[in-house]
């Protein structure tokens, strides 16, 4: 056995090790991918909402990717949030995924106080979707949207959405 010499046994050992490493890596990729969301789940992610019938101050909830999305048509008295309001036609709308940013419960909206209250851990959000009290660390997420006349298409990133995201 020379010091630099690689014996036949060493070579076989290294070959086995290399092949095994490749096998383990490939198996891990397969396992990880098997747990990914299915293509059918990923592609079914668009919701279109017609806003033309909404009254001032009205709150509406639609479903987007299995999650509730709130849409509030703001009245003149309601606080304007430049960094979050969605302007469609000549009205302001507050839009967001109605999921508490603390631990994922669904806060309920009260039209009287115009705020959201999360029953799980007492978090509160104002009508703009901004966290005002309790454990929620951030405002509610604005879903990707595209404005199409009087319609809102959730799931597509329109120029207005990109502008809002860059402001936030």
């Amino acid at each position, binding site marked *: 056995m020379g010091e630099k010499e690689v014996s036949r046994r060493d070579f076989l050992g290294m070959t086995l090790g290399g092949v095994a490493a490749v096998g383990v890596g490939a198996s891990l990729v397969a396992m990880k991918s098997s747990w990914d969301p299915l293509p059918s789940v990923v592609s079914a992610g668009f919701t279109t909402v017609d806003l033309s019938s909404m009254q001032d101050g009205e709150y509406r909830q639609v479903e987007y990717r299995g999650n509730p999305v709130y849409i509030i048509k703001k009245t003149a008295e309601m606080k304007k949030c430049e960094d979050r309001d969605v302007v469609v036609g000549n009205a302001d709308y507050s839009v967001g995924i109605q999921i508490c940013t603390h631990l994922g419960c669904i806060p309920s909206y009260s039209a009287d106080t115009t705020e959201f209250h999360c029953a799980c851990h007492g978090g509160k959000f104002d009508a703009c979707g901004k966290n005002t009290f309790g*454990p929620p660390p951030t405002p509610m997420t604005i879903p990707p949207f595209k404005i199409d006349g009087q319609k809102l298409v959730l799931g597509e990133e329109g120029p207005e959405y990109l502008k809002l995201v860059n402001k936030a």
Partner: protein
Amino acid sequence: MAEIRKADGIVDWLDQRIAIRPLMKVLMTEYWIPKNINFLWAMGVVLVVLFTLLVVSGLFLLMYYKPDTKLAFDSVNYTIMQEVEYGWLWRHLHAVSASVCFLIIYIHMFVGIYYGSYKKGREMIWITGMLLFVLFSAEAFSGYMLPWGQMSYWAAAVITNLFSAIPVIGPDLVIWIRGNFIVSDATLTRFFMLHVVLLPVIIIAVIVMHFYTLRIPHVNNAYGEEIDFEKEAEKFKAGNKKESKVIPFWPMFLSKDFFVASFFLAILFYLTCYHYSFALDPINFDPADHLKTPPHIYPEWYFLWSYEVLRGFFFSADLGLIAFGIANVIFVLLPWLDRSNVVAPAHKRPAFMVWYWVLIADMIVLTIWGKLPPTGVNAYIGFVASILFLFLLLVALPVITKLEAKKNGQ
């Protein structure tokens, strides 16, 4: 190859082929247990009995349960409960055993802490035990999802959502774990796999490991006395059973354990038949609805203390998560947080005794407040109790035991 003779009986036949006599000696008749222990040392065997009951009742539930979001709820609440003969027995036995299993695990664990059975050569017993606690927690959580009621669904939503706090990959990780944007069919089927196959198999393997870790350091005893097991075993084998400080695992130790286990089983089946509702949450009798959060989400009683640590830091979700993470692994480090090598029951370690009961009281407070809505003064009580918990384990214990070690000239 051994020389195989004509056997003079079934035991001899097996002994020639698989050395059954030495095996039984090693595992049973010459595995030595100290004499000076009390009924609290029977909890391990009680847990084995409980785990067996959970496996058996689980197998019977598995034959009628349907792992599908459209079918799961009815397969449990209608098929198993209304149609299957004795289906109610399997379901209630499974639920009650799961709940009681955690009670016994906590007793088992705190007996170990009380008598100092986690240190000075017994660290591996403690670590494998804590690993089992984590595995049982994962098993309980994944099983809780299966009936697909409201609490099943929202517990799954809240717990999977915790991963979103991990920097950079968090939000994608949550979707990957769920297999969808929300908790859904893909989530149910993968957790079904975890609950019925993968986790039980791992649990059984770790139980075997947990037993093996007892071999070298042996079982501790009520005085924390260091016993020369080989010497005492010789005494016993020579017939000095009275003088010897040890007894064999079988038949002597187990005969007493059979009594404790029988007594325990009587209580367990009384609960299963007459008071099973403590193990079933009323909210979970509403089918899961992904657009309607129940007004108040809480876990089963055995997770409430750590849940309250998570909620305790009501002003910061990140701090709460960090504290929750620490609370769930801190007990694993107990052998190193205890800086003293004194192995004795807590009532012989004055400062430790105070620490021990304050810790238990704090965990009971956390458990009670974990069930209450986190509003008003409750939020502050939860906060103080959470801080106290972390202080007790991270600061008080090392300081107290360091002083104890100094006093003992260590």
